[in-house]
């Protein structure tokens, strides 16, 4: 039955609906604290989850919730009905006249307001949000004008120019190294490239390497390097030819 399955999670109560009823009947929970509309919403949600409509359960719930509503209404206005029921005819007439008089006064007040509204209909004024919004808190600490001026002056001074001369690359001409290597090879048959350029700046070393490649391209030198990054040995080409002849002759002798 849906009513037995109804679990509630309200501000004032959490648990099954049956328990709420029991607590209310035992006066252990004040109905004025219970939002009965939440109970109704919970019931409707529970009902929507079911495929079939349990008419009997709905009827039972209606009876129970109506009773709770009546109890709550009586709880909120406990004395009124009893007071009126207990009144003597004379007192009842008095009470009725008092209430009618009160209502008549309010009706007259409403009429006065209506007249006032008509009389004031030509008053136009601006409507808006709260007039004086809270003033925002001052976040910055108090500052001295002199300090601020000094800071501004410092910002306004153009910065000293920074020399970039050290960044400029000056490459010597390749021909310079071509001549140098040729003259070295004229004196010596072979030389060690790394030792030859060790004293030079890196940019000069790069140009020297280009010159070396140029010499290799024109067939003036032979290059040897036993392993990557090992020293490069440069030999004159005529020397290389002589050695080749010597090797061939030696081989010929040995193989003969």
């Amino acid at each position, binding site marked *: 039955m849906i009513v037995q399955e109804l679990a509630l999670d309200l501000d004032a109560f959490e648990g099954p609906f049956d328990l709420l009823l029991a607590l209310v009947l035992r006066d252990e929970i004040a109905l004025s604290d219970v939002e009965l509309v939440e109970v109704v919403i919970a019931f409707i949600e529970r009902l929507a989850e079911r495929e079939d409509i349990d008419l009997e359960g709905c009827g039972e719930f209606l009876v129970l919730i109506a009773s709770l509503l009546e109890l709550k209404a009586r709880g909120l206005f406990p004395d009124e009905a009893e007071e009126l029921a207990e009144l003597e005819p004379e007192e009842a007439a008095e009470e009725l006249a008092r209430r009618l008089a009160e209502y008549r006064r309010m009706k007259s007040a409403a009429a006065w307001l209506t007249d006032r509204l008509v009389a004031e209909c030509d008053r136009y004024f*601006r409507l808006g949000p709260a007039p*004086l919004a809270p003033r925002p808190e001052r976040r910055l600490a108090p500052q001295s004008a002199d300090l601020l001026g000094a800071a501004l002056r410092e910002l306004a001074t153009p910065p000293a120019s920074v020399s970039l001369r050290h960044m400029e690359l000056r490459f010597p001409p390749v021909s310079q190294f071509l001549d140098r290597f040729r003259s070295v090879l004229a004196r010596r048959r072979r030389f060690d490239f790394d030792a030859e350029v060790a004293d030079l700046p890196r940019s000069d070393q790069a140009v020297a390497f280009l010159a070396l490649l140029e010499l290799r391209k024109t067939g003036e030198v032979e290059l040897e390097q036993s392993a990557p990054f090992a020293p490069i040995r440069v030999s004159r080409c005529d020397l290389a030819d002589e050695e080749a002849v010597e090797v061939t002759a030696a081989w010929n002798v040995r193989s003969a």
Partner: protein
Amino acid sequence: MERPLRLVQAGPPVAQLARTVEALLVVASQPLSVADLAAAAADDADRIEEALAVVGARFAEGESGIVLEQVAGGYAFRAAREAAEACGRLFERPVERGLSQAALETLAIAAYLGPCSRPDIARVRGVAADSVVANLVERGLLAEAGRSDDAGAVQYRTTPLFERVFGLESLAALPRLDDLGGDAAEIRERLEQLSQSRGA
């Protein structure tokens, strides 16, 4: 010949203070009380009232398109009545448009009985007040004012906007309830006459 001694006034002259008051009233969108103005202008209440008199003379009906009025417990600028037709072409007055008899009676009850709950209003009017109260809250003419001590029902009071719409300086400007008729003895007499005529 020696000049007579004169009192040295603290603060700016009243004419200058009046200009400050004018500025404050222009930036405010709700009436400002003398205390509000004094706090903002950092001046004393007496001098603010003097300044208000100066501003009031300058911004009066027939003198200016803007009029200073004392309303809803404070001072505020509004348009001059002679400009009402033009203002009406520019703006609607949605707050008070279509206030029903039920709404006016509910406002009257809230204004006279002070904070009162929907059951209180329903008891006087004899019909449920839920939708009327909700509508008036939406229009800004009623506002919640806590809960009653006994039953915990939400209570409502009229707002400063209510006073402004109806052009009331404060709720004290409403007519006295006793002057609005509704004499219980007279009603009772009429009831008795009615019952006798039915019985006859």
